[in-house]
């Protein structure tokens, strides 16, 4: 039994089929990188895992428990599976500290003091403790995204989903966010990330999955996928990435 099992998952929006019987597995402490062209279903897959989208067929299991379909306590699932979005989505009417402590106080029922202590410790680790009282509009995109990661981490999730978290950032801000992900990978956090940063995927991934037309077209170690992929479609995708100078 794998930590996360995705079994024959189908998802469509109206007539548009996004996931067409997708299968995938992830073990604990693994970093799984999802790569593939736009519209191949990377983001949708992540959003299905923590039930921001419902799937139409198939099954998703976390530690052996079915976490898709009816009867699942989504609020409990989402405490265990955190997600960070491309567009940060910080709460603009709350300070950095309030953003981070909201869910621990309201969902985990921590006391305010305890939640703030934990939040400050996390913020200190990413060097954002001095910005704790600032509102999101005072922060750069990179800083906002770092806070968004900490906000997800404050719930101590078992699995962290990262949905193209550097795509909305200016190039010089990308590394400060990736450094945090690298640290988390080093600490054994189980993560699944959709990304266009191929160099980074190659470096941190335990497993790379190339998604194409709603299925995992090819998967393997980074060395295998980036070095010597079997499938023609994978090769042409990576070739184009390389031509764009992104690998």
């Amino acid at each position: 039994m794998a930590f996360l099992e995705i079994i024959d998952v189908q998802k469509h929006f109206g007539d548009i089929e996004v996931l067409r019987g997708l299968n995938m597995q992830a073990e604990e402490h693994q970093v799984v990188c999802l790569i593939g062209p736009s519209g191949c279903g990377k983001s949708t897959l992540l959003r299905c895992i923590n039930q921001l989208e419902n799937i139409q067929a198939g099954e998703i299991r976390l530690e052996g428990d079915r976490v898709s379909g009816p009867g699942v306590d989504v609020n409990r699932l989402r405490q265990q599976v955190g997600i960070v979005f491309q567009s940060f989505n910080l709460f603009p009417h709350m300070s950095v500290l309030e953003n981070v402590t909201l869910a621990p106080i309201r969902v985990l029922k921590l006391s305010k003091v305890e939640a703030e202590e934990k939040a400050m410790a996390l913020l200190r680790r990413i060097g954002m403790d001095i910005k704790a009282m600032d509102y999101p509009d005072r922060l750069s995109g990179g800083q906002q995204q770092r806070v968004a990661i900490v906000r997800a981490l404050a719930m101590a999730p078992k699995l962290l989903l990262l949905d193209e978290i550097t795509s909305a950032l200016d190039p010089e801000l990308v590394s400060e966010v990736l450094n945090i992900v690298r640290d988390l990978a080093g600490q054994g956090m189980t993560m699944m990330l959709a990304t266009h940063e191929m160099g980074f995927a190659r470096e941190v991934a335990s497993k790379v999955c190339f998604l194409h037309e709603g299925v995992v077209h090819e998967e393997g170690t980074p060395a295998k996928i980036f070095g010597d992929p079997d499938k023609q479609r994978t090769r042409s995708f990576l070739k184009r990435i390389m031509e764009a100078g992104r690998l």
Partner: protein
Amino acid sequence: MACRSDLFLNLKPAADLPTPATRHGAAALLFAALCLMAAVSSMSLIRGAVAELGAASPMFAIAQIVVVAVVALLFWPVWKSLAFSRKSETARASGDAVETRIANAAARDFAHITFGWGVFALLVLGFFTFIFMNDSAVGKTFVLLPLMQEKWWLVTWKFFTVNIFVFVIAEILVLGWGLAVALMRLMPGAAGQPIRALATFYCDVFRGLPGIVTLYLIGFGIPTSGIPDIVSPYVYGLFVDISAMSPQELRTATRIPVMWWCILALTLTYGAYVAEVYRAGIESIHWSQVAAARSLGLSYMQTMRHVVVPQAVRRIMAPLLNDFIGLQKDTALVQIVGLTDAFQQSKIIAANAFNLSAVTIVAILFVLITIPQARFVDRLLERDAARIRAGGA
């Protein structure tokens, strides 16, 4: 493409010179003279009317001269306009195209300034002339100062406080009730369906009903139904020993003043409007904010309470104030069920004095209370603008 080249063809070549602005200057001169004549004649009319009122004084003679002098200032831009016209003509004669155009444009601008301020002066003079015409008939009817002075405190402190009490309580209730209705209208899922339908029905009914009809129906209907007489003794009995009271005493002690029925009617009417405002505000919050909150494990209601509604409330400040000003003004309707408010009292004074000045007091009061509210909301919006500007989406 054809259109576009036509457009270019129509552009005048660079060396083309503008038509002289002399005519503008001449028209401005005529207009300024007209304004001055109007000022002189209307001020002498006003002076006559004021003398008739027995209020003539040297101060007024000075004021008359000042007003005429101020209107005469219109000749300054006229003079500037004519000067620039001359300058433009000189430049045209010497073949300096650029200087011609600059001076010509300035001549036009000054002529237009004359027209702008001239129209302003005419309207203001016209207004005061209207008030003082026919032996100050309008002035005496609407702003009879001695009567206003005499009744100001009565209308303000004794009766406008009724309006203030009604709208303050109603506004507090509306804030909560409107939000509750909005949340009911947005209730998700199949279980929410009947609640949504009810809330929609409520909004349709009370937004469609004229406020004065609602007031009339509730203000007379509910007390007449006798239901308050059945219910309120029980509630009253929870706090006070009523066993020794005669039915008459009990009835007097537990009668609900008509003011509260007015407050209920206005709350129901404006609750429907404000619910729609809340709903628009809630729906304007980008779904990604909900996704972020839900993905942290917050429930639907927690997401509403901590993430969506606080942001929505900041956005609806201005339309909310609109509805509140509407509510405040509609407190002038409570007299329909026999509650004496400032408007009703001022009508009584007006009927006794054959003069509307007391009603003018009420008019002034209603305007006066809205202005600080508008400024207050402006300040709030300014303060929040910085926080809301970025960070989300």
